[in-house]
């Protein structure tokens, strides 16, 4: 990730204060990369218009160059042919960077359950927020952006804190129970043979 001196600070009040400022500045000025794949991109463009106005969050500066972008909004289905391009654009973005998977197609392949479409963009790049909808309304994209700010950007750990957070995540993953061994979250057989309208 980053290589600045702010990463080398000892853990403590100083690092926390720097984290606060860095988080605030990233949250307040998050430039999306100019990039759209399908119908979701139309909704994303609507967010730039007067009705929804992404500029309120300081995000109207869609960056043509991935080098200057902070956020990738994968708006639409990712075809197999487009996958390496998406990956390249992601790789060209400078750290720190975030990804919103916009719409069901980008999140899971959606209605395109076929050989031509990548079944979820998280097969090729790490995703921070999954936004369902086909396509999601502009309000939903704004909500996803606000959630992203709140959960991933505003209090992003730096330096020693990030190393600690990564360690915690790793330990939690090691201790996690595999899905097939977990208790059922709901009753799959309960409704079989029953009249749901009764």
């Amino acid at each position, binding site marked *: 990730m980053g290589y600045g001196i702010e990463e080398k600070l000892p853990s403590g009040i100083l690092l926390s204060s720097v984290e606060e400022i860095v988080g605030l500045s990233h949250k*307040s000025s998050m430039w999306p990369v100019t990039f759209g794949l399908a119908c979701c991109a139309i909704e994303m463009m609507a967010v730039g218009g007067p009705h929804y106005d992404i500029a309120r969050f*300081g995000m109207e500066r869609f960056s*043509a160059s991935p080098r200057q972008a902070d956020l990738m909004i994968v708006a639409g289905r990712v075809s197999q042919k487009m996958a390496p391009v998406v990956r390249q654009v992601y790789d060209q973005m400078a750290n720190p960077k975030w990804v919103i998977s916009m719409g069901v197609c980008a999140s899971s392949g959606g209605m395109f359950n076929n050989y031509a479409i990548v079944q979820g963009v998280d097969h090729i790049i790490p995703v921070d927020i999954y936004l369902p909808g086909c396509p999601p309304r502009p309000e939903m994209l704004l909500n996803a952006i606000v959630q992203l700010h709140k959960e991933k950007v505003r209090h992003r750990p730096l330096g020693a804190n990030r190393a600690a957070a990564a360690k915690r995540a790793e330990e939690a993953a090691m201790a996690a129970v595999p899905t097939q061994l977990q208790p059922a979250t709901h009753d799959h057989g309960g409704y079989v043979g029953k009249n749901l309208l009764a």
Partner: protein
Amino acid sequence: MSTLLTLAPEFASVVALPAADVPPSVPRADFSDTPIWLSAVKALLLFVFLLLNTLVVIWFERRVIGRMQNRPGPNRAGPFGLMQTLFDGLKSLFKEDVKPAAADAFLFTLAPILFATMAFVSFAIIPLGGTVNLFGHQTPLQLTDLSVAALLVLAVAGVAAYGVILAGWSSGSTYPLLGGLRSTAQVISYEIAMGLALVAVFLYSGSMSTSQIVEAQRNLWYIVPAFISFVVYVITMVGETNRIPFDLAEGEGELVAGYHTEYSGFRFAMYYLGEYINMFTVSALATTMFLGGWHAPLPFNLIGDGYFDSGWWGLLWFTIKMWLFMFFFVWLRGTLPRTRYDQFMAFGWKLLIPGTLLWVMAVAFIRGAQLGFLGDSSIAIAGREIPIATLIVIGVLLVAVLVVLWLWETKMTEREEAAAKAADVPEEIDPYAGGYPVPPLPGQRLREPSTYPALPRAGATATVVDTPTVENKEA
């Protein structure tokens, strides 16, 4: 310098020649009571002034464009979104500074430094106000003044072009290279017209020193006698700063982000900063050259025996006038689409440069007539003595303008007639004349297929040489 002159006295007489025949009523700024340390303080203040202005102008631009497009614009960062620029800068500071593997490491770093520092240099010669008391010294609100101060701005802009071309070259990537070439070509081409536009001001003021030019405008701003120069300057200053509608170097659809495509983090922030400071520089120069610099506008300069037209008040008037140009930049951006590159270059080279040359010639004659170089006889019109030479020059100019207009109109009429002729559509259309079906234009009648000769049937040996289908095969 003085030792050199004592060594070569015959050289001293050449150097000591009076530079220009400036009327004695127009004094230069007086820096005799300005010690070096005070100049350093002024340089620091100027730096802070420009940074603060930049902080405000990016927010201002985004808010104003927002209002022009019926939306609020940035309003989350701080009150009214005022902290937006600060956070943009901080964000860039905390972002990874990518240097591509193919980049030339030294030049890749040097280019943004060159661009950003050069942007600040021009402001050294801009007079921001009258003479004030600063730490017990009577000193003008101007860092320094030169006999060729206005040329310094053009020279520095020329050096700043290196920041652009080196960025494009050192990135080791195709789009930045193309963007850098475009940007440099643009800046250099428009600098010629810009310099020519300023020549009229030099002719009127008899000086290139900015403080003298401002002082010479105490009674009449040069926007009035040199209006054409003003218009040309305003066009070229937009071209010079790579702003919409002339931001061809950053055409997203063609060149990604132009010369700074490969720049991220702090290096990019320096370009971002430099571009806005450049806007302030050209606006400040426009204010100095055409809008009377720091002098108060009309109703205020008459109040209280010129009280509002001196000292610190100058800073206020200067800032207001400079910001009018900044608003104009924003207004353009909210209004106009991008021009095409060839149109832009043709406009600069074929219209602005020759047009401004002619205008400068005209100004030279008017000025010569005013100063009595073309004869002294004058005539009284409406109680004012007007030299006959001036009237003759103005008459010749009017005739020239009429001739140009006449030629222009003849050409336009010819072009319209040719266009009307080309657009003349025949009454009837043969839909298969071109070999494939073509729909009729509005008002056209289709030729009925029944009137055609019969098409040859398979195996038939009829003579069908006249059918349109066969003709097309031959064609």
